[in-house]
């Protein structure tokens, strides 16, 4: 009987200490040299931390924070606990919940950091049906059972001899034995922890996910570039030649055969006299006197370099355009 009771009480003391020591440290984190403590409120850090776990958080210089550390960080009026996955310039950190697919969308500044998680207590087990049964239901049932047994003992009808023996045995009867007190302590701490999310502020949940939708645009050619060669390269303003000849090729999928030769103009003003498409090359001829008159009108003189534009249309209305530079002499 003595040994049984010793074993029973030792077991209860161990359970008590497992509950009470973390709870004490949680309540008074300075016992561990830490600044604060939080209850984990979500599974975003699972499997490292589960909701209900206690974390003891110690203030840490940002230089002492390394990738892989778990930090508790202020975010608005709330705090959350996530792991460091990236360090930037020493003062900015990228955090990620282990259970989240992507890192947190916001970067954390050094000033937001409450500290590094130095100890975790797996109190999440209290929230499992077994944990709940062991710290709330079982202690309550045992205490109630014991009291029922006491009532039964005191109200049982007995003959005189039995009564005398019962009284003698219970002379030093105490209502609250060691085991009842220990059970009551387990019950109180357990119930308080289970109610904690309703009572205290914790390290709040931070689930996030990031997805990306993409789109791609490209412009076509609405003025098709043409490679233009204007002959002669040097035009004498006193020249008596009949034509200025232009060779043009189109370097896109547009077909030179679709060019409307009548639409080809030089600098937007001089219309082609004649044109034809020969294979992959457009050849047009402009009246040289018209070109010279235009150049003189534009004020070009001896030695000037002139860039002339040759443009025109394809049968579907799309324009093409190209430039070449010639030298004017007089």
């Amino acid at each position, binding site marked *: 009987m003595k040994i049984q009771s010793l074993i029973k009480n030792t077991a209860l003391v161990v359970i008590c200490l497992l509950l009470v020591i973390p709870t004490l440290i949680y309540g008074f984190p300075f016992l561990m040299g830490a600044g604060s403590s939080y209850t984990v409120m979500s599974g975003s850090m699972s499997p490292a931390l589960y909701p209900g776990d206690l974390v003891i958080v110690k203030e840490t210089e940002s230089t002492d924070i390394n990738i892989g550390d778990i930090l508790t960080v202020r975010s608005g009026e709330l705090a959350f606990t996530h792991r460091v996955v990236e360090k930037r310039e020493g003062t900015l950190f990228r955090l990620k919940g282990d259970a989240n697919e992507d890192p947190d969308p916001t970067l954390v500044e050094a000033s937001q950091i409450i500290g590094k998680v130095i100890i975790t207590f797996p109190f999440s087990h209290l929230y499992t049906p077994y944990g709940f049964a062991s710290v709330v239901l079982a202690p309550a049932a045992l205490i109630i059972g014991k009291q029922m047994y006491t009532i039964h003992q005191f109200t049982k009808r007995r003959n005189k001899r039995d009564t005398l023996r019962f009284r003698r045995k219970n002379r030093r009867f105490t209502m609250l034995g060691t085991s009842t007190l220990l059970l009551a302590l387990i019950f109180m701490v357990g*119930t308080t922890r289970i109610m904690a999310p309703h009572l205290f502020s914790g390290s709040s949940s931070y689930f996030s996910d990031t997805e990306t939708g993409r789109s791609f645009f490209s412009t*076509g050619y609405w003025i098709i570039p043409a490679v233009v060669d204007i002959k002669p390269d040097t035009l004498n303003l006193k020249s008596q030649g009949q034509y200025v000849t232009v060779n043009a090729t189109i370097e896109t999928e547009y077909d030179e055969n679709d060019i409307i030769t009548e639409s080809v103009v030089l600098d937007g003003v001089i219309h082609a006299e004649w044109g034809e498409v020969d294979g992959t090359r457009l050849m047009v001829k402009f009246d040289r006197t018209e070109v010279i008159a235009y150049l003189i009108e534009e004020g070009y003189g001896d030695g000037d370099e002139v860039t002339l534009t040759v443009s025109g249309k394809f049968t579907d209305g799309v324009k093409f355009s190209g430039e070449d530079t010639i030298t004017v002499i007089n």
Partner: protein
Amino acid sequence: MKKGNITILASIFIMTIMAAGASVGTQAWFSTTNETTGTYTMNAATMSMTVTSGTISFDNLVPGEAFGPVAIAIENTGSMDINYLGGDLIITDANGNPYSSDTASGVLLTNYIEITSWKEYIPNYGWQESIGAPQSYETLVKDGSAPLTLMELAKSHWVSSEPSVKKDQFGYWVKTTTDWCTGDGYDIVPEGQPALAASGTYQMKLSFKLSDDTPNSMQGKSCSFKIVFTGVQQNSQLP
């Protein structure tokens, strides 16, 4: 009173306290383990989104051409409601990477891509037209007098004061405000309602036009953009 009677009374008292305590504890346990609110989630909830639309491309655009819509759908494939859904529009190169220079042809081209319509589909609220509405991006970004361009929309999230934050995972253009955000009182969704409940699908449709004033130098150029959607539970967690 006899000692026996006091003991019985005390026992009944202890039993009552324990029973009351156990019932409070049980209630707390049930409500705690089943609750998923903004501040805590004690059950094994998960948050996950999936883009259900592919990359959409439009080629051979010419000035004045209207094109679109670009439709992007996001499904909440997790077990948890997404209370807030925010988006970042980022101009990228063809590979989806941010440009390192803002004079790259792809960046310049976005000045000429006008957004003609912006529609969002939010479960329970249906299709909502955002451009032209009082809280539209057109008016948030500019006064609404001229068409909103892709560049302006991307630039509305531009942060220059924090160069270290500038080149974020979100790319060359970074959003810091939550002006494009839906859920719990933001945008279309009333207070207390999630933007995207579990297994719901959010959709977005954007229509465009290549500006009539697109210069010839923009011929044969390409640009790309991506929209990075972020789902969170609390608005303080939005980027």
